[in-house]
């Protein structure tokens, strides 16, 4: 048994002891019908869900399976891509709690702390994010600055021992459940250096003056929030990176966000297509030849989504570097086609609930899909990135995250 096989056996044992297996193949009628793809699940009780996720994350950490590629001295397992892949393969076979509520902290905040944090910050924040103690959120976007972070107006004013911050943030996923927030604020007013006037903070969400208001989405759920900051005190020790370096820190988070979309996106897509195929087989819509062509097209895009990350890794350097944007564009297009296919196949049952399993549940995907083409960088911004970075075409006026380099 080589090392990777030994690792696989350990992971398998971990899951086997704790969670029931999912059916090897999806079965029509199996499981909670509200869950057509985790991203679109309607949580009955999101606090209970979060507690389940934190408990599971704690168990993972105890077993050394939480932060697979993190450095050992910070609680990571010090392993590589091969182990991450093995872990994911095994994990998806068990009916374990959903970890979405911890993702922002682990995939957006943690990478920035790892690169720019002081030793004290790294030790305080990183193990806690990865053992479920700490839940993180992101505080970048503002009502007047969606994709354009250089237009931020939230201000941090120097005071004795720290900063006072006032402003409004928006589109903060999970802020109502989070303990810490990755906060980008303006610390210099010099208009000539709009981007260099930004500083990043790790905000204690329990600080006086922080108000979180859920933002109801078109799906009816309120996963995102508005966050109001009214003269909030932040000690110097919670500045992340140097003062004025916030732009660079933000880019570590944003680029990790883009990179990690591919993973969850493809997983989402796979499960959705499987479910649609089940419904098609069940109700005999397989005799609809137009639907057959579109299901096959969805399958083709699923194969591509699975293979694109590795294929892009072997592409030319500029294309490989912009790979996350390419994957996101491919995935949002594939998702849109898949939803249209679902509408074509399910017909009125996607609009009004007949009670049949696996049909009206798709309405949540339908209503959630438009957000995926905006969140994490709109399709238009991804196309700019590809045209400029991968193909070397002239630049547009730039958003913040594009000015790293």
């Amino acid at each position, binding site marked *: 048994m080589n090392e990777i096989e030994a690792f696989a056996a350990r992971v398998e044992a971990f899951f086997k002891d704790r969670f029931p297996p999912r059916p090897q193949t999806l079965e029509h009628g199996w499981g909670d019908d509200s869950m057509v793809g985790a991203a679109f699940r309607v949580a009955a009780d999101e606090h209970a869900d979060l507690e389940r996720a934190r408990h599971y994350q704690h168990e993972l950490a105890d077993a050394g399976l939480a932060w697979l590629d993190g450095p050992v001295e910070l609680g990571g397992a010090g392993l590589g891509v091969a182990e991450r892949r093995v872990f994911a393969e095994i994990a998806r076979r068990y009916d374990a709690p959903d970890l979405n509520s911890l993702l922002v902290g682990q995939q957006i905040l943690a990478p920035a702390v790892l690169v720019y944090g002081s030793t004290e910050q790294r030790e305080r924040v990183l193990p806690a994010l990865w053992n479920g103690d700490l839940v993180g959120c992101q505080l970048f976007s503002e009502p007047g600055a969606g994709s354009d972070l250089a*237009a931020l107006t939230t201000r941090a004013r120097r005071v004795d021992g720290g900063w006072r911050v006032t402003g409004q943030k928006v589109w903060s996923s999970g802020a109502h459940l989070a303990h810490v927030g990755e906060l980008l604020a303006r610390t210099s007013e010099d208009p000539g250096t709009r981007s260099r006037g930004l500083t990043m903070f790790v905000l204690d969400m329990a600080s006086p003056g922080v108000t979180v208001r859920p933002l109801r*989405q078109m799906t009816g759920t309120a996963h995102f929030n508005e966050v109001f900051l009214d003269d909030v005190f932040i000690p110097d020790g919670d500045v992340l990176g140097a003062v004025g370096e916030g732009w660079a820190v933000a880019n570590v988070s944003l680029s990790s966000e883009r990179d990690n979309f591919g993973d969850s996106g493809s997983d989402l897509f796979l499960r959705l297509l499987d479910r649609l195929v089940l419904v098609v087989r069940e109700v005999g819509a397989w005799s609809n030849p137009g639907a057959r062509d579109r299901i096959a097209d969805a399958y083709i895009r699923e194969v591509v989504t699975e293979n694109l990350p590795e294929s892009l890794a072997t592409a030319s350097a500029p294309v490989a570097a912009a790979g996350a944007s390419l994957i996101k564009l491919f995935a949002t297009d594939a998702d849109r086609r898949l939803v249209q296919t679902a*509408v074509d196949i399910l017909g009125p049952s996607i*609009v*009004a609930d*007949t009670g049949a399993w696996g*049909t009206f549940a798709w309405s949540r995907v339908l209503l959630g899909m438009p957000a995926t083409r905006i969140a994490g960088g709109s399709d238009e911004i991804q196309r700019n990135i590809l045209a400029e970075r991968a193909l070397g075409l002239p630049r547009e*006026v730039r958003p913040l995250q594009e000015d790293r380099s």
Partner: protein
Amino acid sequence: MAFLAPTEEQVDLRSTLQTYFAQRWPEAEMRRAAEADERTQSELWTSMARDLGLHGLAIPEELGGGGFTFPDLLVVFEEMGRVLVSGPFFATVAMAAPLLLALDDREVQELLLPGIASGERVVTVALVESEMSWDADLIRAVATGSGAERKLTGHKFFVLDGCLADTLLVVAKVDEGIGVLVVDADAPGVTITAMETIDATRRQARVSFDDVASRMLRPGHSAADAVAHMCQLASIALAAEQVGGAQRALDMTVEYVKLREQFGRTIGSFQAVKHHLADLLVAVESARAALAHAAASSTASPADLAIAASVAQSLCSEVYSAAADSTIHLHGGIGFTWEHPAHLYYRRAVSSEVLLGSPHHHRAKIASHLLDEKESS
């Protein structure tokens, strides 16, 4: 089937309606109605009938209506679609009334149409029994007996505003072939259950009938042609709603991108946004042309009307869904908040896309016309 330019009366009617809905149906009112208990009737309903006579616009004068044409009525649906008027107007005026008019049963017409015209009666049509396709042909409900009095048993899905209706027109198998039966919503054996739907501005219900006393229209005749004719007119009315909704979605987006700034410029100055909206304008105008063609065909031969209705319904469905989707996308984050109206248009667009047959379904009809008949098109 020549193109019909709008008449002066239609231009006036449109302008009257725009003023009227701006006052009587602001967004707040629309949201209130969408979230209200669906058994309450809106004030607008009464006012539309009493003050403007919209319900009876295309009902003959001798049956209590205004005696205007079907193309005149389409102006009403287009303006209603623009502002997402909710309530049973579509079910009653675009479906029940045309079905009654298509069935030459004077007695029932006199019983029901004056009440529809005056706004006192809410009538809907119970037709579809399949779950995954809006299919007017697959009828399993059965009404037994002969003459006008029948006993009805069966099950219907997707009955528009079934919970609000006082009278149902039910399509069922009868000895004569296909029959349309008048059923009182309160009659013993009728069970009406609201279906959860994504579009709160257009409610739907499932209705079951267990040996229900009902009255057959035009006993002795098959009503299949009348049902088909009603579906075609309703498809054109729906297309008019879709054109109105798509136009509003486009307008609100154009307005927004002229104001919203990102990266130091209005987002409407980015060529990607400009071209996206240019394509949307082409789509909306193409839908309008298809609608105009269908309107002009509403008095044409049955075959021509059927094809023109399918052309309009297929294209207008796709255009409205695309327009509503683009509206959300080009509004960015604000576009997918609950507070912004974009999602209400999106919900209506998708729910309309699958109502009265999907675009694929309508194209299958067109293909059959072009390819399966003896004469060339």
